[in-house]
């Protein structure tokens, strides 16, 4: 009953952006084949950042890496050495029977592999190639190296992020990765529609850096119209006051509150048992509250300090004030709303055990999409894919294994890489 079950995707993605994009398609029912090689497994299998079940790497750590087992659910996994000519030949046979290829290599890698779009299109004129790169495949900076945080800086997102009056705050998050990884599958599906009509595939060149610039549109427009640059304003808002993050009871517990009208302000005063503040001229209207926001924030924090952040959220929401507890990871798994919506799924992996994972935010009324396969172990589906899809005999598969073109164990060099 899955929405995309007629689509086959070859996932050459590594780290997060490509795999995340392919994960969306897999979760919605597409047949996604993650292609790695023993010489070059997805780096997150090796550089697992110590994220193993119970912290234990185990006998085959490359199959117990949390980062891999999270975003590669619902995919088949094969290995294939694309640098060998026989490997390339087999890959092109897979291309012939597939609809989509996803990759997020650095610009130029696909070409060096002899696998760029013209080659793929010759094997299958209807193939869609999605290239998800940091800067796009063209331009003077296309070969520049970056991590997620780099693109947060170079996209403009961090120029407006920071504590008030302080330098921009450089985070360790990777927002651009997420925007592009979520946009990619939508673009692929739109392109598939075009392929059905025009009979020809397309190469989608998606830039993570540009995707992040798209999400600060109003900031760009203010510069275009007024040559005005936005400064970081912390948790404040240009016109809503109070608007901020306030300490609550506990070691590192906070609640966010955003008041958008005089009526809400009066309600808040009532809830804080400080009705006299509603008559205080310093806070009477939005402009006045904005002027005295430092004082106001102190008053509010005096009240929030002694309370649990979920309680505050509930009390304020009851009277229609936007309040949100700052939840940590553990709290997310216990959150009542996510619980009732059954957002987290229990997944059992043959070598990593059972864990809870986020479901898809795309909820289709007629199709309960979700996790039906754990992430593949390295080369787990070699036999299944080569035998069933490509019709290779057991002898041929054994030959490929013998030549080291396919396998289920990373090479010594790969293991030592990190």
């Amino acid at each position: 009953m899955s929405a995309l079950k007629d689509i086959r995707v070859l996932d050459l993605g590594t780290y997060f952006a490509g795999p995340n994009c392919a994960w969306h398609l897999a979760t919605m029912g597409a047949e996604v084949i993650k292609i790695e090689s023993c010489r070059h497994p997805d780096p997150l299998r090796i550089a697992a950042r110590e994220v193993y079940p119970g912290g234990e790497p185990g006998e085959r750590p490359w199959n117990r890496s949390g980062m891999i087992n999270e975003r590669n659910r619902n995919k088949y996994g094969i290995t294939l050495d694309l640098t060998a000519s026989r490997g390339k030949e087999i890959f092109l046979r897979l291309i012939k029977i597939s609809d989509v290829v996803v990759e997020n290599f650095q610009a130029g890698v696909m070409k060096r592999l002899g696998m760029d779009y013209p080659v793929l299109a010759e094997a299958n004129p209807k193939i869609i190639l999605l290239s998800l790169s940091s800067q796009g495949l063209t331009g003077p900076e296309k070969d520049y190296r970056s991590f997620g945080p780099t693109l947060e800086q170079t996209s403009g997102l961090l120029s407006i992020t920071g504590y008030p009056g302080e330098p921009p705050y450089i985070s360790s998050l990777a927002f651009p990765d997420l925007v592009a990884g979520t946009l990619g599958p939508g673009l692929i599906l739109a392109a598939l529609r075009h392929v059905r009509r025009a009979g020809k595939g397309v190469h989608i060149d998606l830039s993570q850096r540009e995707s992040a610039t798209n999400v600060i549109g109003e900031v760009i427009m203010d510069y275009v119209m007024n040559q005005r640059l936005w400064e970081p304003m912390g948790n404040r808002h240009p016109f809503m006051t109070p608007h901020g993050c306030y300490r609550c009871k506990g070691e590192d517990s906070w609640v966010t509150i955003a008041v958008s009208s005089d009526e809400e302000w009066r309600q808040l005063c009532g809830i804080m048992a400080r009705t006299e503040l509603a008559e205080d001229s310093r806070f009477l209207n939005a402009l006045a509250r904005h002027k005295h926001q430092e004082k106001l924030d102190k008053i509010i924090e005096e009240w929030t300090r002694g309370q649990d952040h979920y309680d505050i959220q509930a009390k304020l929401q009851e009277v229609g004030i936007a309040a949100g507890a700052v939840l940590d990871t553990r709290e997310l798994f216990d959150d009542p709303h996510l619980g009732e919506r059954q957002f987290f799924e229990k997944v059992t992996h043959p070598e990593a055990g059972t864990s809870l994972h986020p479901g898809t935010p795309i909820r289709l009324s007629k199709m309960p999409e979700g996790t039906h396969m754990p992430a593949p172990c390295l080369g787990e589906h070699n036999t299944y894919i080569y035998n069933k899809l490509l019709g290779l005999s057991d002898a041929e598969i054994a030959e490929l294994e013998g030549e080291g073109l396919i396998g289920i164990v990373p090479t010594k060099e790969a293991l030592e890489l990190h």
Partner: protein
Amino acid sequence: MSKRVLSGIKVIDLTHYIAGPFCTKLMAALGAETIKVEKPSEGDGTRKMGPFPSDKPDPDKSGLFLYLNTDKKSITLNLKTQTGREVLKELIREADVLVENFEPRVMPSLGLDYKALEKINPKLVMTSISNFGQTGPYRDYKAREITLFAVSGQMYNLGDKGREPLKYGGSPNQYLAGVVGFTGTMVALHHAEKVGTGQHVDISIMECLVSTHYQDLVQYQYTGTVLGRIRRMGILLCKDGFISLNVQAPQWPRLPMLMGMPELLEDSRFKTMESRRIHADELEAYLLPWTIERSKEEVYHAGQAAGLPLGYVATAEDLLKSAQYKARRFFVDINHPVAGKLSYPGMPFKMGNLPCEQGRAPLLGEHNEEIYCGQLGYAKGDLVRLRATGVI
């Protein structure tokens, strides 16, 4: 126009503010006929939100509105009237997609819930983007960008240890939800075109954000560790702004070499990544005299040329001047009868040789005649009457 990937798709766009309109903006850019349904007289609330040129409000000059609503048509329609809702149903009959981002109780209260619309058009894909989704204990909760960021789990990780966590500037999470809405709609549309029946796509902004938190979620599941706010990453002041030092262990030696300070390589305080972290302030004291003499882009390019993944904190001004963005033709100039010619961020992708020109945002009700008369067959006189009775 007929060469675009979504040509022939008709979208009825009931969205307002950011998340919904960004979702439909993407569809419109890909060639879908996107009909934005706005409240008579006022239109989408973002028409009242700046930025405005010289800060003078004008419903056709809001930078936010103009950016979010490129390539769309605008009709006015009052959904609070019975006639208005009947007219909407006529539009829905011939549509492929309907997108809305009202609070969940709104569409059902208007008799426009998915069950009702499905009867009118069984092939319709209805996408609803809301703060917390169509069900659940928080369904009717109020939200803003900051509160959504908080409940997503992400905010806990942004900012300094020991003081309040930080939100990203602007409203990037609203935009991200719009992207999820776009992809979700494409999934349902793919299915509808295959089997002939549509469905209701329920997008919760909270879930969009929690689902992007996957690295921390799996780390907690596997190791029981709750990641929090760590020391901020290295940032250095240049002549005209900031660069960052995201230097991994194997690349470290190139940095002192680039800056002509080879002696730093022998300094025991800076030998390992851990020791560099501990002595970060001392290291920055050595590097600062070098960076402060140079512009951030100079350092960025020199560093990248030396194989270092340096980044610079780009402002809107930097991006508009960026050689990379110019080469990609990322910014597009679009003319508008009231706002004039302005540069806008374009689409962050190229699709082969398919056309990628973008068109301007519409004036309020600009396409009333085209849609009501041209598509639904109303006479011009009917429009006068509908206007007089507050329907359009």
